[in-house]
């Protein structure tokens, strides 16, 4: 199983003689694995940028007065944080990096169905990102990531058009990725790989892709109309021009609520892989987890109005949206219970990816439960647009998506690079992130119920202690994000050679070399069993072979 050197040929190596050739071989590649690496680098760059903006916000909020920066700068900082993190980190994160790398490997294909389209979607992502960066550098934008009208379309004096254009272009990148995944999963599965033999990560990405291609166009239309109103004064959203300000909210949330599931569904897919592998067991309730992804994707389209309970939407609409929102809680709960049941009679190891997976469950449970608070209309009237909402969606998006993203990066790092990261530092960083995250965001639930509104630069002094606690937690969280950057970078040169299957996992991606060759498999694999084909005695055998000194 383990080899002493990296394979002679792999997707990372090439025969370029000059630097220019080497650069071309990356920037013009149509290899899904190389494109995944391009995404990995660019997405992490945007993550650091968004994190920097968050740092500005958290430092400013240490004191109730506005002393570090002016209100205008503060508003630009939280908008930059939101726009970058949502559109340029969270939405593409798992599908574009892990999905791109793994979808063809997991289904035994040599690439995605449309390799050139895949490269185009990375370029669109970068062009969108550059627009957003230019908007930020030349004065910034102060609308919040939600771009509510008529503030955004008429009143804001900032680089609205530039930022919106960036998000608009990024949207096409997202659509193309979704399209590519759907075509690939339908048409390119290896012989014998039936739908119910697929890894749950594939199911989750399939559900995500449906949302991406159906919802993203609506966001594009909504944002384009903001530009039309802002530039040409055509009355669409601004009542002074004969428009309707609520129309924007309906269109925006029709995308942006499902967008939350674009972030969390692939994360759930990752968690299913991790829990199964590190329990040495078939995942519990495979069909229930698979169909709960689809149920979330469908129900997710019907709950956008729960962002609008106080917007002057009618009482009856509010009740219907609240009702459907309650239903979304069920498939989410089903997943959590099935993951827990998978642990029973497993042979559990505490490797770094598993720590992230367990952390994910803890944070996602809190994020999900507080989602019910917000979905209950009468409570939402009080806590919407307060820090309660801020805490809730960070638990789901950061606690959920980022934990899974990092867990997935660690899990497939040996496959991507051929080398192991440092397990001790990995565990320490996972622990720091979990503690730092809770310290940052738990106080914000209390702040929110006390009535602290979100997006406040200056706030009443009685909220200060909780804000200071939150900022202290954020500093710990920041350290937790920096540590992996260091040891992962070091592992590229110094990490132990991983071998094809360092975790002893099932799944096709572990049957090829690490890193895989350009066309993934020397021979198209024939699949005769499901993705979690651990024999019934796998857990027993794994535990029996454990000796003091073996990895925990």
């Amino acid at each position: 199983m383990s080899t002493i050197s990296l394979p002679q040929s792999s997707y990372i190596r090439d025969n370029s003689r000059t630097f220019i050739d080497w650069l071309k071989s990356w920037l013009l590649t149509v290899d899904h694995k190389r494109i995944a690496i391009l995404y990995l680098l660019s997405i992490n760059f945007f993550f650091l940028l968004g994190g920097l903006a968050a740092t500005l916000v958290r430092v400013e909020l240490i004191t109730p007065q506005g002393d570090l920066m002016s209100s205008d700068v503060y508003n630009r900082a939280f908008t930059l944080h939101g726009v970058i993190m949502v559109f340029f980190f969270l939405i593409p994160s798992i599908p574009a990096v892990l999905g791109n790398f793994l979808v063809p490997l997991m289904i035994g294909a040599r690439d995605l169905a449309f390799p050139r389209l895949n490269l185009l979607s990375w370029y669109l992502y970068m062009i969108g990102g550059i627009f957003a960066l230019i908007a930020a550098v030349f004065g910034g934008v102060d609308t919040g990531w939600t771009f509510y009208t008529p503030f955004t379309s008429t009143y804001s004096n900032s680089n609205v058009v530039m930022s919106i254009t960036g998000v608009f272009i990024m949207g096409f990148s997202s659509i193309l990725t979704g399209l590519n995944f759907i075509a690939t999963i339908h048409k390119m599965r290896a012989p014998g790989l039936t739908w119910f033999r697929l890894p749950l990560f594939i199911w989750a990405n399939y559900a995500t892709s449906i949302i991406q291609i159906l919802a993203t166009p609506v966001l594009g239309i909504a944002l384009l109309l903001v530009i039309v109103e802002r530039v040409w004064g055509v009355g669409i959203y601004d009542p002074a021009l004969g428009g309707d300000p609520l129309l924007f909210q309906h269109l925006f949330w029709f995308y942006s609520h499902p967008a939350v599931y674009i972030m969390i569904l692939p994360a759930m897919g990752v968690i299913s892989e991790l829990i199964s592998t590190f329990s040495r067991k078939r995942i519990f309730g495979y069909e229930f987890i698979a169909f709960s992804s689809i149920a979330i994707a469908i129900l997710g389209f019907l709950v956008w109005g729960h962002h609008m309970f106080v917007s002057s939407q009618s009482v009856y609409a509010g009740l219907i949206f609240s009702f459907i929102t309650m239903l979304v809680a069920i498939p989410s709960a089903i997943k959590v219970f099935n993951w827990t049941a998978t642990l029973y009679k497993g042979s559990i190891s505490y490797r770094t990816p598993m720590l992230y997976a367990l952390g994910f469950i803890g944070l996602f449970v809190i994020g999900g439960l507080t989602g019910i608070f917000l979905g209950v209309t009468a409570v939402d009237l009080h806590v919407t647009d307060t820090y309660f909402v801020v805490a809730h969606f960070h638990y789901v998006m950061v606690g959920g998506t980022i934990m899974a993203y990092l867990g997935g990066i660690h899990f497939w790092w040996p496959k991507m690079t051929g080398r192991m990261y440092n397990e001790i530092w990995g565990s320490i960083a996972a622990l720091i992130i979990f503690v730092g995250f809770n310290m940052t965001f738990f106080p914000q639930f209390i702040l929110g119920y006390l009535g602290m509104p979100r997006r406040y630069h200056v706030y009443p002094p009685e909220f200060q202690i909780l804000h200071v606690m939150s900022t202290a937690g954020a500093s710990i969280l920041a350290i937790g994000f920096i540590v992996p950057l260091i040891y992962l970078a070091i592992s590229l040169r110094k990490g132990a050679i991983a071998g094809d299957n360092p975790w002893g996992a099932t799944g096709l991606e572990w049957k090829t070399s690490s890193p895989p060759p350009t066309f993934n498999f020397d021979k198209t694999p024939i699949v005769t069993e499901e993705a979690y084909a651990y024999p019934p005695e796998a857990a027993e055998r794994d535990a029996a072979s454990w000796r003091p000194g073996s990895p925990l």
Partner: protein
Amino acid sequence: MRDFPLFPEQASTFANQVDQLYFFLVALSLIFAGVLPFVILYLIVRYHRSQKVDRSNPVDSNLKLELTWTLIPLALVMLVFFWGAFLYVQMRTPPARTLDVYVIGKQWMWHVQHPNGKRENNELHVPIGQPVKLIMTSQDVIHSFYIPAFRIKQDVLPGRYTIMWFEATKPGEYHLFCAEYCGTEHSLMIGRVVALPLADYERWLATPGPVVLPDGTIDTGQAIVAPSIGDPMAAAGARLFTNLGCLGCHAMAGGGVGPSLQGLYGATEKLADGSTVVADENYLRESILNPNAKIVAGYAAVMPSYQGQISEDQLNQLIAYIKSLADTGN
């Protein structure tokens, strides 16, 4: 730094009811989020690979279990949904008799006018034990009127009225926040809500003070003419009604080019296209600014629009006047 509250004050009839539901949700969450981690902790310790325990006959599916953890959460979320829904309908439906107060939001201040004409900026005085209805609109972008101690908020939109109601229960001063991001000084669009016993409230209403206008300036002229508190809104509205020439068509006795407005507010109007509409504040507003949107059956679409000719402030006064005619009709 002296204050370190962990729970907001309860100062309206809603507050206790919302908090009860909130505590129920917290209790439910503790059962899940408090027990589940211990189950997971138990499992990952007991079944850690270093532990020699029985791992034979692992199970990977169980329909009964799946149904249990589908149906029990479903029943629980339905319970909280209906509990929340009944409370929500109550919070969104003002009682028939309310004290109406008009609110105008603008970047970045709140302007309030009471029916007797008294105005205030970034403050709202209300009596306790009385249902108060706020009729709110914005002059520019979307704002949101939020009183945490009352557990209620409502977005304030340009181009229409939004309604919010509450009944304060405890005298005191409470935070008033703008909860919808509205630009540079969003976090300074704050103020205080002062809840007073009825007698104190009435004394406050009748106390002369500087007449503040929606743009934040102080109307010295009016303060001299009416040293008390300015004209009552309905009286100011009646004057506008005459000055703008409304009376020419909307004759009180009826028979004019337009329908009489006596007894109109709150009534159900039959429209030319056969549908009906309840004449609430938003209907009155629309009929003044965009008269052809809804034509009352039996009348011609001849009224000109007053869009751009009257301020939000004047519109409020006109509507207060038309509402005052409701009691005189029928």
